[in-house]
């Protein structure tokens, strides 16, 4: 028994594991915070587009030895400029434009990574590599996530009113336009942070799944936010921990955990789950009979 316990405690004995678990949890928490809002507006795929678009920036930053956040920032600006430009000069619909621009940038990023394999690894960018993250990168991720989380704590209610009823928000003096800009800035920043933990392909899960799961569990927005954060932070921490034993990609483990919890909520949620709906239907049929 105690041998097993010792075995289970092993990850906590390594600095790199502690770093990976805590940084993952922080990133998971703030991404989940944002997910509570993102999925309400039908903007979920925006997280995916952002996650892929910043790849060339991150690759370029590694090649020239600059902080990855700076590269991601410029790539993000390039992506939004590109989308605006195509939108103004064509009749294409928004989804086509987003699809076009983000895949182009993603391809560019992969190309850069394959041309300079010594300074940037494709695997790191696509799958993340939190277990081998450098101290400098870990600090950047931690600062981005912590600052974003702090800002969200201050604006979460105003953001809720804005997303629920923008006209009312403005009529009580909330600066709805500014809030939305802040929200998308934070989303971009957190996408950059999540790139380090789960990689470009799975960023979308971090900014959608916790919110979607919480949505099935409560009708109160405040609780939804708390549940989402708990799910995001918990799965990220535990995911990093488990990846030590299974020797698998951390991102894959984290997102698998989130999906398992989503499925549990999907079936067993007390009010909005599949089983609850079936019970309700049965009750109605019985009452009618």
């Amino acid at each position, binding site marked *: 028994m105690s041998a097993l316990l010792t075995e289970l405690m092993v990850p906590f004995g390594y600095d790199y594991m502690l770093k990976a678990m805590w940084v993952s949890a922080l990133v998971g928490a703030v991404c989940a915070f944002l997910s509570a809002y993102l999925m*309400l507006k039908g903007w979920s795929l925006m997280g995916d587009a952002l996650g892929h678009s910043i790849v060339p920036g991150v690759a370029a930053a590694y090649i020239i030895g600059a902080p990855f956040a700076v590269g991601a920032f410029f790539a993000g600006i390039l992506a939004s400029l590109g989308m605006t430009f195509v939108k103004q000069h064509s009749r294409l619909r928004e989804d086509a434009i987003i699809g076009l621009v983000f895949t182009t940038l993603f391809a560019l990023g992969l190309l850069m990574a394959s041309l300079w394999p010594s300074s940037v690894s494709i695997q790191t960018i696509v799958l993340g590599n939190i277990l081998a993250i450098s101290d400098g990168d870990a600090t950047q991720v931690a600062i981005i996530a912590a600052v974003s989380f702090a800002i969200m704590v*201050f604006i979460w209610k*105003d953001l809720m009113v804005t997303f*629920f009823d923008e006209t009312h928000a403005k*009529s009580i003096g909330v600066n709805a336009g500014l809030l939305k800009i802040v929200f998308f800035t934070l989303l971009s920043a957190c996408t950059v942070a999540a790139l380090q933990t789960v990689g470009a392909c799975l960023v979308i899960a971090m900014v959608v799944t916790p919110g979607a799961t919480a949505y099935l569990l409560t009708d*109160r*927005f405040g609780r*939804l936010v708390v549940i989402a954060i708990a799910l995001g932070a918990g799965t990220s921490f535990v995911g990093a921990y488990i990846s030590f034993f299974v020797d698998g990609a951390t991102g894959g483990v984290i997102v698998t955990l989130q999906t398992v919890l989503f499925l549990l909520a999907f079936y067993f949620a007390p009010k909005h789950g599949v089983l609850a709906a079936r019970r309700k239907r049965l009750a109605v049929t019985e009452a009618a009979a």
Partner: protein
Amino acid sequence: MSLLDLFARDEARVRKTSIAVRDLSVTYSNGFTAVRDASFELGAGTICALVGVNGSGKSTIFKAIMGFVKPSAGEVRLCGLPVDEAVAEGIVAYVPQSEDVDWNFPVLVESVVMMGRYGHMNFLRVPSRTDRRKVDEALERVGMTEYRNRQIGELSGGQKKRVFLARALAQEGRIILLDEPFTGIDVTTEAAIIDLLRELRADGHLMLVSTHNLGTVPDYCDQVVLIDRTVLAAGPTEEVFTQENLERTFGGVLRNFELGGQALHEDDDARTLNVLTDDERPLVFYDGKPRQRKGTDDKE
């Protein structure tokens, strides 16, 4: 700010509830002039219908009153204050059109009403005891107390309207703008909402109702503003809400069925019946006078 300015502000606060739109023109950045030289004035204890076809400038006038668009000429004053100051004081409350609300939003009835209090709270929006009391009172007022812990999508059409009216009450907005309040609501529910609006009028609220539901306007509106890119006519319902004015407002959109007395019944009653409709609830004139349904609180 000088002491005089402060006095002026304090005076404005006790000033009577009013909307004054003077020579208002709004031109959007794409060069489109949605409203030109519009003028009307409304006072406390009023329900006013804002009537016009789609695209006649109803929503532009709403936006100008809430300060979302800047007048290119003229001005709007609310309770004697410029729009920005009035909005900052929370004077204007807005009841949205049902189709503009995401009814799946994970929010409870009481939380929606609490949103009306946000303007009175500090920037962290932590409700005080007063805020909670105002929410309780507002819910009680509209008869929604027992539904306070329901998710908003679980309510009926009329209950949903009541919740947003409660939010306006909690906000303590003396001016309430209602956007198409009766779309998709059955007649019984409509009557109940109208009763509630009448009560609020008795309390001194000023309500501006955008609608193309012509048939009910004479039932509850004491004032009417008819618009078609400008104000065609404004004033007491009995003077303004005439067949002639409505035909001017709606142009070809409006259909008019005229039935002579003899076509209706074979007696001496020679009254003429006109049915005006723009495919919402029709408006019926007997000899040029609108038919009026009595509210439950009216003395017969």
